[in-house]
């Protein structure tokens, strides 16, 4: 039984340029204690997808066109704002990319943290302070008591992200939505934060949706990966399968264009030609068709359906939205 199930989610934005579908017919599930990596380039809709789960899509210009998000037997998209608010920060928590702008610069660390507790748990100021200190200690912040009285600008980037994580985990959420949690951080600090996240997950069994563009982060952190392109989910698979045998041409290209730290500098890097499409003027068929090296006539007629992939060696179910990929796996050979 999946903890969270997203079915056919579509989110549209009505902008001045025209209306665009930032998330188009996206379905995925999240199991308990699992980490799902949501990968894609900028504009692929991965962040909007995350916001939609939290009911935080700005409306207007955003419109949830269709879809269901099932959590604990309820469809989050149908819940009234008051019930959603009770869920947010309690069972569902979120951490953002930029820890500087997501903390209120005028409030001390204690005020930011205890707000969550006072709202959701109704604790007194003193009890809340104690819990906050414990939470900071839990995310590896030294001298938590002293840090509580500091303000966001007195903390370094890594510390701020730890505070954000502590805040997100205060109410022991079942699902943590992490939107590019380490993108703004340096590599060594990123390593600390990733280590912290996987450690916390192991201890508490929180399920994580990890939105990122960094394939390295996904490889290390997630159990399953969903790849998005131009608002659509093009491929989802267990991390091992996806990295070992990428099925969708976009995933293949994406993996091949990452420079290798381990050597092999001869020759050009593989690169996907062209640039991501303008969401306002998507091509009629598969959005990736204009950049795809394996494109066929059929690809240009209509968007391909996302179907289960017949991969006998797979560690779990795989879905791919590319007829070529299916054909390739049917005949047993890789493309």
């Amino acid at each position, binding site marked *: 039984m999946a903890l969270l199930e997203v079915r056919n989610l579509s989110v549209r934005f009505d902008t001045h340029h025209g209306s665009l579908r930032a998330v188009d017919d996206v379905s995925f599930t999240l199991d308990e204690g699992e980490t799902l990596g949501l990968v894609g380039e900028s504009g692929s809709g991965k962040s909007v997808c995350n916001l939609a789960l939290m009911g935080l899509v700005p409306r207007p210009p955003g419109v949830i066109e269709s879809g269901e998000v099932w959590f604990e037997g309820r469809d989050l998209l149908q819940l009234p704002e008051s019930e959603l608010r009770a869920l947010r920060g309690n069972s569902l928590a979120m951490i953002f990319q930029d820890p500087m702008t997501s903390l209120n610069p005028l409030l001390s660390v204690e005020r930011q943290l205890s707000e969550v507790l006072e709202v959701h748990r109704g604790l007194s100021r003193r009890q809340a302070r104690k819990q906050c200190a414990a939470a900071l200690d839990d995310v590896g912040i030294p001298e938590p008591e002293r840090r509580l009285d500091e303000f966001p600008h007195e903390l370094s980037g890594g510390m701020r992200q730890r505070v954000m994580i502590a805040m997100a985990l205060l109410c022991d959420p079942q699902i943590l939505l992490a939107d590019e949690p380490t993108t703004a951080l*340096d590599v060594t600090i990123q390593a600390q934060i990733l280590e912290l996240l996987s450690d916390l997950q192991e201890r508490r069994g929180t399920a994580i949706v990890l939105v990122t563009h960094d394939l390295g982060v996904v490889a290390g952190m997630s159990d399953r990966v969903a790849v998005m392109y131009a608002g659509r989910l093009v491929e989802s698979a267990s991390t091992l399968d996806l990295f070992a045998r990428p099925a969708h041409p976009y995933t293949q290209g994406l993996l091949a264009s990452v420079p290798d730290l381990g050597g092999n500098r001869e020759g050009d890097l593989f690169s996907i030609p062209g640039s991501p499409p303008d969401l306002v003027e998507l091509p009629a068929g598969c959005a990736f068709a204009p950049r795809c090296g394996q494109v066929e006539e059929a690809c240009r007629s209509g968007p391909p359906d996302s179907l289960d992939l017949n991969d006998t060696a797979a560690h779990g179910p795989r879905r791919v939205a590319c007829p070529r990929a299916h054909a390739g796996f049917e005949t047993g050979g890789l493309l």
Partner: protein
Amino acid sequence: MSESLLSVRELKKHFPTGRRSFLGRSHDVLRAVDGVSFDLERGQCLGLVGESGCGKTTVARTIMGLEKASGGSVTLDGHELTSLGRRGWLPYRTRVQMIFQDPYASLDPRQTVASILTEPLAIHGRGKPKQRKLRAMALLDVVGLNPRHINRYPHEFSGGQRQRIGIARALALEPEVLVCDEPVSALDVSIQAQIINLLVELKERFSLAYLFIAHDLAVVRHISDTVAVMYLGRVVEMAPCDTLFEAPQHPYTRALLSAVPLADPLAERQRRRILLEGDVPSPLHPPPGCAFQGRCPDRDAVPAGRCVSEAPLLLACGSSLVACHLDPSRE
């Protein structure tokens, strides 16, 4: 030493900070770059890596004369640059050019591509307007853009295309050295690969020398011949690319390399990370002795207190230069 094209010696850039009154001088000094030396040979690529705030961008800006050096020297073919004024600099501008990080901020939004690309030629009085324009179109072709789009504006191009325009502008004066300040870090992975390939191609085609600044180690490894690692305003290790990545000597380099996530789940799961404690100290109040001592996982291996009392010098160790008190023959 006189052989090298661009030679940087003990370069320092200190920024006065803190409160400044109308007449008073401030006393706090931020040592953004604190004695950096390296040589760049013709046709070579020197990668400069480090985390944010380590001073790598300031090195680039000081070399370009965008910041006035507080000390040390930058010589191009034996000509000292740091002491020059704007006019004195002009003849050298044509030989050293820069590519910027953010393709959205580095092009003037009110100029057409034509005026962006002809501006360098106009400043240096090269050719007539018509010739300049033809030249600009040839440049667009060189960087893989359609020369017919010369009359468009930057906002009509995507991020990757804009970065190509930025590269074309840097090539306009046919420089020998390109200083690339994080040229691909603002781009998506699939576009990043295109730009790296372009840079590699241009390097061969025009025998350019690159000072390639990046925080992405994999990118640096792909493009560089030599790599220098900076920490808190100093170079802690400099070595030929393969040596640095395969046999890193400085504890910081090792930690940095081990922290990079690999796009390979199996390798990633087996890997043991060296996790550094804490954050990079503020360059306003660097720790005494070795700047890395507070976070160094190997500091106990060094005889008592040397790391605190004495800043390590950048000394040869095999084919690398390493600034660490740790005995390199330890392994």
